[in-house]
């Protein structure tokens, strides 16, 4: 996810998209995907910072 902010971000998106769906996509689509990846990266960061410590959760699971 961090790669989308780098200098070769569009190439990274293109590579990722081809890996996923094995099809050539127009440049406009790649720009749209990149914009959406940036939005998702922001949301993923919020999720990550809010998620409880997994060891705590594991302990709760075992207690239950």
């Amino acid at each position, binding site marked *: *996810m961090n790669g989308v902010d780098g200098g070769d971000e569009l190439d990274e998106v293109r590579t*990722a*998209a081809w890996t*996923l*769906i*094995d*099809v050539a*996509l*127009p440049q*406009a*689509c790649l720009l*749209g*995907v990149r*914009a*959406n*990846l940036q*939005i*998702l990266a*922001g*949301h*993923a960061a*919020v*999720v*990550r*910072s*809010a*998620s*409880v410590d*997994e060891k705590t*959760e594991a302990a709760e699971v075992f207690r239950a």
Partner: protein
Amino acid sequence: MTRNITDALGLAERVREGLDSAESIVATCLSDIAARDPALNCFTAVLADQARADAAAIDARLRAGAPVGPLAGVPFAVKNLFDIEGLTTLAGSKILAGRPAATRDASVVQRLRAAGAILVGALNMDEFAYGFSTENSHYGATRNPHDPTRIAGGSSGGSAAAVSAGFVPIALGSDTNGSIRVPAALCGVFGLKPTYGRLSRAGSFPFVDSLDHVGPFARTVRDLAAAYDAMQGADADDPACSPPDDQPILPTLDTTERGLRIGILGGWFRQGASEEALAAVDRVAAAFGEHAGAAKVVNVDLAGAQAARSAAFCLTGAEGGSLHRRRLSERPLDFDPATRDRLLAGLMLPAGVLVECRRVRRQFQAEARALFETVDLLLAPATPCAAPRIGESIVNIAGRDTPVRANLGLYTQPISFIGLPAISAPVTEVGPLPLGVQLIAPAWREDRLLQAAHWLEQTGVTRAPAPIA
């Protein structure tokens, strides 16, 4: 003529008493749709012949003295992601248009028809339910009946607009992140998103299985409750549909719990909202405060709402992308560009993020459960603003430029993320355009939700504005 078909239960009573015929009601409905829908674009298919035949069958049963259901002769229409026997299920897409026609109705459609309601058509939506505006690149934008230059909201925009315009008194939609509550608010009608697992989704095209709900729109809480009652019941065809009980609400609608504890959600639910949206919440809160049943109104918070909304955002992209992976690979250029780009981005999310999203969901569920130990109902805006103009990508809300597409579900997403039942109710006297508030109840307490909404409607604080001529 159109004013005659806005009250579902009133129509059904007239049909049962022989004061009106189902055939004449359907004829009025169909001619109204033919005359006015081209300007609003609510419908993607009108089932005129089938509707006339169904109406004739209801009238024949009545003439024979046979029983008819509680919604006898009431026209209704459904978002075009519900299967309708004989019609291809589009889910707002071009890609599915070449598929064979459905061989049976979706479960909730079957149940409404079994109650005597008459299906008149399929309704426009955002492609694959991924959007809040119903600006569909294949089938055109649905226009808001209260200002046709504005969006109807989405993704069940055709459903909300069809009820708002007075074409049908009942419509069905689906809600994954707010797709019933957002268009209901922007079009000025009532919309119910029941508890996750309450109503069957069998025969509806999925979007995000762990977040998908279906529910009704109506112009009154009585009609909303009647439609909801007719659709209740477990369904083996939807594994998620396993309600603890059937809960007929219409007979109990006039019951008002005394001493209700109402929590006004602050924090996340008041940030980024327009003055009008906040005024709507405050107007409803004030009405509860003056409630003869001694409701107690308190300010409360759900601290995990922002994280819940972000997690819903990620989960939606990833699950939705996964569902459409093959179609994205084979026919990427046949998608609505906005939908395609979001689905592809969702597919690229690392699996670890999804693990954390599910963890955040459990945390937020626990927080909401604890809050409902202290309050009976929660109150929040349904949308941050009234309907934006068609084509508008940025709106200025409270002095800040805000992207429309990402933010109309700001306050609905955290609630559907944990499956709580919620109603969007249209609030009167808060501005020139419709605005709604969300009433939110603990899981499986649709009874409390609808009773409170009905009480508010009786006070005049919430009411669907009259259809535009």
